[in-house]
């Protein structure tokens, strides 16, 4: 049985979750606050010398984005699994692939995109040269969707648990290693006067692959959590 078009389901899920998030919009800020706070800790820990800070700025930005992205993951499927929405999605007859994609998009819009926008400020504050910032943003643009895909899969796997705690990070972080390496590598390459294209192309390939196949995995994890 299937009611309504796939597009209506996709948009509907996005609108419903978006509305829910908007009502708790204070929570939307928490990844950003976390990012800015951690960024402040680095100069305090490493010392205020500009040379040392600017040499680690790119890597620090990436690690901050990676960690801040974990914060909102747990909420992605938790309430759906608890109140039965996940079961409703399953029996709706709609393509779970599209619904998973909607969840991934939602996570990216509410976490990846804001982090992408705040990252240049952090990078410049840490003393990264201006010409590296464009590459950083480009790398983040290609990398953060992959982090959202990985995160959504992990969140779907742990949705039916009472609490996921450190488990989400334990699942996501090892899998995010390639994104971190190529993302930080692209920035590093530009800063030492090289070409970022190799790393950026690999990141782009990863983004295409994970956006194509990630929702499949996420859908099967959703099915597992609902059953």
């Amino acid at each position: 049985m299937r009611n309504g078009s796939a597009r209506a389901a996709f948009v509907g899920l996005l609108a419903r979750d978006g509305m829910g998030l908007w009502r708790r919009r204070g929570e939307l800020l928490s990844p950003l606050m976390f990012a800015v706070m951690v960024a402040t800790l680095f100069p305090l820990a490493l010392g205020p010398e500009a040379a040392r800070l600017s040499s680690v700025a790119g890597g620090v930005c990436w690690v901050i984005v990676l960690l801040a992205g974990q914060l909102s993951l747990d909420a992605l499927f938790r309430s759906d699994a608890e109140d039965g929405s996940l079961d409703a999605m399953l029996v709706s007859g709609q393509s779970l692939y599209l619904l998973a994609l909607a969840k991934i998009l939602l996570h990216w819009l509410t976490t990846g995109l804001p982090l992408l926008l705040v990252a240049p400020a952090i990078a410049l504050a840490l003393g990264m040269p201006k010409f590296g910032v464009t590459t950083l943003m480009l790398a983040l643009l290609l990398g953060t969707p992959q982090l959202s895909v990985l995160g959504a899969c992990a969140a779907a796997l742990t949705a039916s648990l009472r609490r996921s705690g450190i488990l989400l990070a334990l699942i996501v972080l090892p899998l995010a290693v390639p994104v971190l390496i190529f993302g930080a590598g692209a920035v590093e390459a530009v800063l030492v006067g090289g070409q970022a294209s190799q790393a950026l192309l690999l990141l782009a390939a990863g983004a295409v692959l994970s956006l194509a196949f990630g929702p499949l995995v996420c859908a099967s994890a959703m099915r597992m959590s609902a059953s």
Partner: protein
Amino acid sequence: MHPLWLWFHKTGSPPMFYRLAGKLMPWFWALAVIIGVIGLYLGLVRAPADYLQGESARIMYIHVPSAWMSMFIFAFMAFCGALALIWHVKISEVLMISAAPIGMGFTVVTLITGSLWGRPTWGTYWEWDARMTSELVLLFLYFGVQGLYSAFDDRRKGARAAAILALIGLVNLPIIHYSVEWWNTLHQGSSIKLLSGKSTIHPSMLWPLLLMAIATKFWFVASLLHRARGDVLEMESGKDWVQQMLPGAAESADGKAP
């Protein structure tokens, strides 16, 4: 039904598996110990010391087979996970979960022997070398699979979740490996790669290595069957065949053990 399928389903039923595994296990243990002792004797006593690295190169006879096993077991786990997801074969869930701690063990042995070898050779216990780093990430992947499984109260649901994660991990392993290698060459030029000239290895060193590789395979199978038998008993503790074999099993194991 095709005889092969029939055999497959029969062997996959828990009571049959339990009995068969019990019969096979001693043989695998015996083979593992015998081949392992011969391999260790040849490797640690008979094989010549390396002209460059001296006696410390003998760690290789434990390190390299363990490293092979650490990756082989992850692939095995993902394979069993796929069987569990597609055909819902109970035994393959058990085998997958039983393989995880063994794989973790081999990974830890690889990392420890690697760092012990690194001390006299590189002058440091830990080097951010591509192989060591990706082995460490592999250990984290094992932690993830094991942690996810044990977080579920429902054993079968946990096994399915772990199976999905094992499959994601298997697809990502080569990507992680090559990205780490890329990162490594980007950041530190060429590190010392004494182990890369594997093809020119002398036969007196190759034989013990191969024997150890075979011994670790047998060890894995024996240990896997051992663990899987225990798991099957626990999982089926309410069933008749366990009750007949072990009266009172149900009281001691209701649900999942800690």
